[in-house]
């Protein structure tokens, strides 16, 4: 493809992204709502086990992985793909190409998720945490991914030869990493499983790289794009950001094995994981040094206030999660917190607090531009942010506190296990409350977005459709 000579205008780019990116983003919001409803269901079951117990499809061991996969693949990865396409068009200043293939890919991706979730709920989950998608669903997702993400590379390639922005580095690394990680994980975990304990190694490798190289890099790409954009302050050091990217890719991808601290795994494997995790403090500092000053110097324009809260929440969650991960990989701390609700809290902080909030901020920034609507209002985003941000904070704090209480009780062998259960149950109850608040917020968001998109469609297409049913001038004349 010939390099395009000049940068296209922002409005032209947004118009070229309207259907493919709009499709991805609205679909992802739908899955976000489904995921938050499933989370409510699964957290209710943690303290009211009799709730809907007669239905095998809704037992905790199926609803919980369904909620996780729905969030990670239905919402987060899908929104990430949408935002990635838009960002790569905007950052290179070119029109998005391949809109039709992207739409076909989106249909495939959503088909894969629907089939996968129904499979998990029907009891076909693979039995490997975070690799639950059945063997008949993951290839559909993979095909969908290739049909969508390739165009982000092609779009960027039209204007090769320009220096890359920091967020492009992260974006391209994530786009290249996902197919590698997804296919290797599913091949060695599900299709041709390794023997015995090595399955744990595959699982942890996949889990860690999906989180680090795919989700966190997309999240960081959004932070590195939106924060400077909203505040008007440049990222202090580009080399530091690139250094942070590569060190995170290297150390982070080794880091997952700490999840089996003390487990039936050769000790050197766990040690490698701990070393990798502890070293991620370096890229964490690099991100903090680059983005914290930008975030602190925020400009108070209405739109930037709208979005900056989400992005700021994501940044803080990212840093806190990184520090907690380093802490819990150490034996002194991990001895207490291992196997407790604190690990659930950390996953929620990462998935909802960091990735989810960054993607929601980006969605609220991108969607109005795609459809050229003046939305959302300051009041609406404030309300939505309070629901979701408050819910996430409440849930994470409750689960973290519950995890520490549970861990301390488990550590003391004189406390019988049913007493341990009695101690963590109130915290699980609080997390149900938090999930309810989040689900309510997401419901309001989905309703508002659907309304806006429908209004936009009506305004744009109703007159022309209406015209089809009007008698043509020739007929009218003939009647007269």
């Amino acid at each position, binding site marked *: 493809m010939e390099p395009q000579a000049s940068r296209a205008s922002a409005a032209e780019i947004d118009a070229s992204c309207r259907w493919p990116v709009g499709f991805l983003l609205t679909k992802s919001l739908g899955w976000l709502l489904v995921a938050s409803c499933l989370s409510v269901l699964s957290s209710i079951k943690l303290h009211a086990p009799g709730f809907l117990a007669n239905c095998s499809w809704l037992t905790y061991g199926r609803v919980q*992985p369904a909620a996780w996969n729905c969030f990670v693949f239905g919402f987060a990865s899908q929104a990430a793909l949408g935002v990635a396409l838009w960002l790569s068009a905007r950052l290179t200043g070119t029109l998005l190409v391949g809109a039709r293939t992207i739409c076909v890919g989106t249909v495939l991706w959503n088909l894969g998720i629907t089939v996968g979730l129904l499979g998990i709920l029907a009891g076909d989950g693979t039995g490997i945490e975070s690799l639950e998608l059945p063997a008949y669903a993951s290839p559909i997702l993979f095909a969908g991914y290739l049909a969508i993400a390739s165009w982000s590379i092609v779009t960027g390639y039209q204007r090769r030869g320009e220096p890359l922005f920091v967020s492009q580095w992260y974006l391209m690394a994530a786009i290249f990493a996902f197919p590698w*990680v997804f296919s290797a994980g599913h091949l060695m975990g599900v299709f041709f499983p*390794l023997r015995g304990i090595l399955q744990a190694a595959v699982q942890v490798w996949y889990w860690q790289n999906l989180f680090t190289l795919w989700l966190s890099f997309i999240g960081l790409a959004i932070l590195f794009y939106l924060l400077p954009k909203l505040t008007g302050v440049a990222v202090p050091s580009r080399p530091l950001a690139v250094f942070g990217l590569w060190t995170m890719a290297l150390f982070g*991808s080794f880091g997952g094995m700490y999840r089996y601290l*003390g487990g039936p795994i050769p000790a050197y494997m766990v040690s490698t994981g701990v070393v990798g995790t502890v070293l991620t403090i370096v890229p964490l500092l690099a991100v903090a040094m680059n983005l914290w000053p930008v975030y602190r110097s925020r400009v108070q324009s209405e739109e930037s206030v709208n979005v900056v809260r989400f992005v700021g929440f994501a940044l803080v969650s990212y840093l806190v999660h990184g520090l907690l991960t380093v802490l819990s990989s150490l034996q002194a701390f991990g001895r207490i917190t291992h196997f407790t609700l604190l690990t659930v809290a950390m996953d929620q902080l990462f998935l909802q607090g960091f990735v989810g909030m960054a993607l929601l901020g980006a969605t609220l920034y991108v969607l109005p531009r795609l459809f050229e609507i003046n939305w959302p209002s300051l009041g609406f985003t404030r309300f939505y942010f309070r629901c979701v941000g408050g819910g996430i904070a409440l849930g994470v704090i409750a689960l973290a506190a519950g995890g520490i209480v549970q861990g301390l009780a488990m*550590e003391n062998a004189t406390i019988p*296990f049913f007493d341990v*259960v009695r101690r963590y*149950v109130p915290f699980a109850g609080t997390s149900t409350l938090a999930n309810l608040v989040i689900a309510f917020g997401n419901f309001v968001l989905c309703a508002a977005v659907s309304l806006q998109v429908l209004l936009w469609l009506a305004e744009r297409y109703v007159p022309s459709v209406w015209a089809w049913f009007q008698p043509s001038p020739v007929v009218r004349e003939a009647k007269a």
Partner: protein
Amino acid sequence: MNYGPLIFLGVFFTVAASWLGVVLGPHLQFGNDGPATTEDTGITYPYARPGQAHQGAEVYRANGCFYCHTRQVRSKEYGSDLERHWGKRRTVARDFLWDQPLMLGTLRLGPDLANIGARETNTHALLLRLYNPRSVMPNSTMPRYPYLFEKRPIKPGQEASPDAVFVDQSSSDRNIEIVPKPEAYQLVAYLQSQKAEAVILEVLPPLPPGGATNVVSPGGTNAAIATPATNAPATNAPSAK
């Protein structure tokens, strides 16, 4: 400058490095580990799982039991698992040689199940626990699994099935019994096969005076067993003789 190929190669090699270090390296090292036979007793460990327990693993997987129960006992430096009598020794890689999928679990909302088969030998008690956990433990958060059981009316004059876990004969006209489906029996068989307690080379219990267990590998050489399948110090190997 054109960074595309650089990023592609960089990502490729970093991911390949961790794949090599975390998955492929360990696979080359002990991916072909086999069962080991204890010379004194002639018992080969890990035991092959009986057919019904094998089917039970599928029930365990389908219902996601491993989201709340671990099947790994840690040594005393890592937690109170041994003090809680969840096992006589820590679990090691060899215990899970036949597990497919592995289902170790990473969260303990319920107790560890690595040795549930050694702790609970009563089939009926386990069935009852699946049907209604709160009947056994009042504040349990474990879900009920009524769909693994069949609710059958007892015809007048007919005896309740001996397999029933629960019989309701409160009303005279319509009596009901709860009978386990095959899945419930399979799951219980699987649970009862959970006995990661055999004495093996990797984790030796404190030696009783004068008694030691001699372990040989399927190849028959003692040297082969010394492959570091776990982090047991190599110095333990000679002491086993």
